[in-house]
């Protein structure tokens, strides 16, 4: 019996003007699996996640995106909202709402999805979720500008998981953090994803993070997935592009564009 993937991408292509960012991406992610997409800056990693979330409009697009076997590519309005309810997302810069307090950020999705929920109940749930990412209740009434980068990432993670999503997306979860804080965030991601049985799709160019949080790693290059395999095989992929990226070498088949 074939098991329906939680997320299935088939021939996903996105172009913005003359620039083809994604050029036929095929990827299946099983329920409860954590896949990390690696690749250089500007290779379309963020576009890939935003395409699944349905929050990016390209000038030209093709292919299908299915969640639990249901094609969501053309879904709009309330139908799309219903699909998006099972998503949580940690943005690269955390993207916290700077006019709201920490607990209002974490409880934002709870209040949006259940309009009968009182603010008091939302606050309690938000504080409980903050506890899961290692933040004490006394940060609940601070505003994001009063937090360090690492704490903002934790609040972003709490906001992503507060609505008990089935699928979580992580966009460069460790970018801009010191190595120790990056590892703390990685541990939190592993703990939340594995313990709650979530499906996760992460994008990063931090290989330590990719190895730690991914069951499988896929490499995106020039809009295509050029290698997909188990995380433990990434150092022995036999793919020159992957080897160059993983080892961070300037020399190799990937030529960095230093001048336009």
């Amino acid at each position, binding site marked *: 019996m074939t098991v329906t993937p939680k997320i299935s991408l088939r021939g996903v292509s996105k172009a913005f003007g003359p620039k083809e960012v994604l050029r036929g991406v095929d990827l299946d992610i099983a329920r409860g699996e954590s896949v990390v997409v690696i690749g250089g800056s500007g290779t379309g990693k963020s576009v890939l996640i*935003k395409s699944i979330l*349905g929050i990016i409009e390209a000038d030209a697009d093709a292919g299908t995106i299915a969640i639990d076997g249901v094609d969501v590519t053309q879904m709009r309005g309330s139908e799309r909202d219903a699909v998006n309810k099972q998503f949580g997302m940690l943005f690269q*810069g955390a*993207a916290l709402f*700077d006019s709201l307090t920490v607990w209002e950020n974490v409880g*934002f*999705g709870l209040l949006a999805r259940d309009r009968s929920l009182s603010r008091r109940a939302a606050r309690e749930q938000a504080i409980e979720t903050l506890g899961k990412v290692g933040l004490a209740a006394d940060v609940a009434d601070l505003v994001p500008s009063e937090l360090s980068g690492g704490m903002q990432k934790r609040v972003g993670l709490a906001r992503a998981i507060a609505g008990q999503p089935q699928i979580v997306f992580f966009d460069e979860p460790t970018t801009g953090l010191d190595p120790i804080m990056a590892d703390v965030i990685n541990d939190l991601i592993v703990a939340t994803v594995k313990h709650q049985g979530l499906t996760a799709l992460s994008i990063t160019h931090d290989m330590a993070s990719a190895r730690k949080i991914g069951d499988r790693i896929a490499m995106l290059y020039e809009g295509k997935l050029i290698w997909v395999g188990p995380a433990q095989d990434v150092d022995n992929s036999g793919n020159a592009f992957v080897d160059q990226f993983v080892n961070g070498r300037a020399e190799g088949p990937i030529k960095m564009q230093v001048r336009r």
Partner: protein
Amino acid sequence: MNPLALVGHVVLRFLGHVGRLTIFAGTALSHCLRPPIYGRLIGHQMIEIGFYSLPVVGLTAIFSGMVLALQSYTGFARFSAETAIPNVVVISLTRELGPVLAGLMVAGRIGASMAAEIGTMRVTEQIDALSTLSTNPFKYLVVPRLLAGLLMLPLLVLVADAIGVAGGYVVSVYKLGFNPSVYINSTYEAVKMLDVVSGVVKAAAFGFIIALMGCYNGYYSKGGAQGVGAATTNAVVSASIVILITNYVITEMFFGT
């Protein structure tokens, strides 16, 4: 570049903006009519646009009324027509100066702040975050600002009219030696309901335009701090120009022959 190609490029770009703005306004209006409506946010924006703009609009109005009385006097005195000053002050303020000056001042204050706030939310992915949290950015960010602009500008203009007339009264009575009760009576007799209504209609239109331009430019800003800065400038400039054009169109509708 070929000059004709340049003209074509500019025209196409302009038409592209007009089309996008029209779709943006249509989408925002359609969301105004469908739940959920965020009452708290509308209330917050009403205070931001209405209450906090009172000082700047009030100051503009009072000095405009004062200057109007003074300038009218220097001109009308040549023809011994000083008695027309109360009429000129009240009609100029209610029909034109009140709504246009309030509109331009609020465009500078509120249009810029809306574009900067929404633009910053765009470049820091906060608008994307709203979408992932089951919240439509149009409903959450655009609709409250549009409704607040539409509702608060008319109130601001009514206050500006009253303050402006009071400014004219102060100069006329205390500097130019007008009889206070004659001045007030002349003002009441000169102003017609249509004058006030036309000013209020203009104010509602200007409030909508200011919020629309602020939200539109902020929503589509890109490129970090520079993009947000450009969005802010565009919001104020485009709102000011559209206000002046709309002012002529509404004046033509009410008073055109």
